[in-house]
């Protein structure tokens, strides 16, 4: 089953997979064995092989989140061997290749664990808390009518670049999963600083940060203690600087906004 590379030797692996029937069921680790895994497969393709085996045996396949499988959508969300998205830095689970593992390895696969991310089934988690945070303020006011000329609003290149870096957040939740406190600060800070850096974001600047932080707290995420696991595990490299920008924006908004709540 080895792929196009003739030197790629197929691997046999032991998988310890978290199985949980539904949101309220008691979950547990179940051991599986997969054979002839090509080092050129992605991690999710390896799980596809496992699920095929399970289906052939008449067992329930392992539920896991995935969509684009090219590191853009932020759907895949596996906690592999004690790390968000596995051992490789700056990579989503779908872009993690089996060549990063060795024949005979035991791999433990768990879902993101956070009170705010309830487990749907097995490895699939409900991250709609992130959607509700974005709905609370992660948008900009846009005038109706014809699209304005992009070059009409001058933005210095370095500011545009920093805003873009923050905008690359794919919302996968690896930051929450890796954080000891299950804090969503890196996720929230990426959106807040992206929009705070740009003139388009100025209209809702104060209400945005107040509402997004309020929603984040309401969802039950932990508080940031600047450990730094989030940025270290982020597949797109969102930096801790964004959290400082969020703190700054929040303090400034609380001190000056007209919101009395």
């Amino acid at each position, binding site marked *: 089953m080895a792929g196009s590379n003739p030197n790629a030797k197929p691997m046999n692996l032991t998988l*310890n997979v*978290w199985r949980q029937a539904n949101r309220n069921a008691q979950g547990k*680790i179940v051991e599986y064995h997969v054979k002839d895994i090509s080092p050129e497969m992605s991690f999710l393709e390896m799980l596809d092989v496992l699920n095929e085996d399970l289906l052939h045996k008449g067992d329930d396949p392992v539920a896991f989140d995935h969509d684009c499988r090219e590191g853009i959508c932020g759907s895949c969300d596996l*906690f592999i*061997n*004690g*790390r968000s998205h596995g*051992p490789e830095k700056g990579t989503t689970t779908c872009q993690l290749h089996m060549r990063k593992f060795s024949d005979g390895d035991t791999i*433990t696969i*768990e879902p993101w*664990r*956070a*009170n*705010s991310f309830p487990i749907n089934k097995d490895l699939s988690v409900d991250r709609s808390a992130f959607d509700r945070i974005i709905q609370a303020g992660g948008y900009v006011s846009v005038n109706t009518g014809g699209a304005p000329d992009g070059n009409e609003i001058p933005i210095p290149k370095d500011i545009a670049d920093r805003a873009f870096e923050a905008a690359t957040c794919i919302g996968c939740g690896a930051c929450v999963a*890796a954080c*000891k*406190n*299950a*804090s969503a600060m890196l996720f929230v800070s990426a959106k807040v600083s992206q929009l705070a850096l740009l003139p388009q974001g100025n209209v809702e600047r104060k209400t945005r940060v107040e509402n997004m932080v309020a929603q984040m707290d309401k969802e*039950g*995420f*932990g*508080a*940031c*203690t*600047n*450990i*730094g*696991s989030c940025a*270290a*595990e982020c597949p797109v490299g969102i930096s*801790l*600087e964004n*959290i*400082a*920008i*969020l*703190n*700054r*924006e929040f*303090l400034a908004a609380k001190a000056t906004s007209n919101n009395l709540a």
Partner: protein
Amino acid sequence: MSLTGLFLCTFLVVHLVGNLQLFKHDGGAAFNTYSHFMGTNPIIRTIEWGLVLGFGFHIYEALLLTRRNQSARPQKYVVNHAEQNSQWTSRNMGILGSIILIFLIVHLYNFFWHARFGTLDPDINNNDDLYTLVVSSFKQWWYVLLYVAAQVSLGYHLWHGFGSGFQTLGLNHRKYTPLIKGIGYAFAVVVSAAFAAMPLYFYLFTNDKGELTSAVAPLVHSLTLALK
């Protein structure tokens, strides 16, 4: 957390600088004069209440934060390799802080309580002789051990805490953050090492009166000469 923490850092500096007078070879006269001033000056006594509040809020916030953050992840991971993505000290500020709190209670009872409410014998300048109490305390091995362990914890606590305080306040900049972190690391090492040096010095190198023992005195003498 950040404001109280950084405020407590300033206290550490004052406390450390004052206590360095323990190393002055004058039988404790300067140290006792200093501690008499600290215990009686009305401005210091007022700031002292600020310090009590600083510690109180820091501990209170830590309790709230810990409770909230623990409830944010009720079910732990079966396998978690956090050591591969963060520093141990950053993840264990609560444990380190608790060790420091235990130390603080013992420390306050032994020195502050006796100095403020106890009856210490007067020294040659008729100040309360806190120096002798310090020296005799640091002649007990378990006390020295507690002190050194607490200072190691303090060092690790500051290693994370100093830089973290600035980050929480939003003071992060590509130019200055590496500098702030570097100062924080140096602060952690220097402050904890200097505090730990006090009990170790009296335990290892002095007699019951705080005078250098005969084995060490020539060494110190030649060191002083070399420095001159």
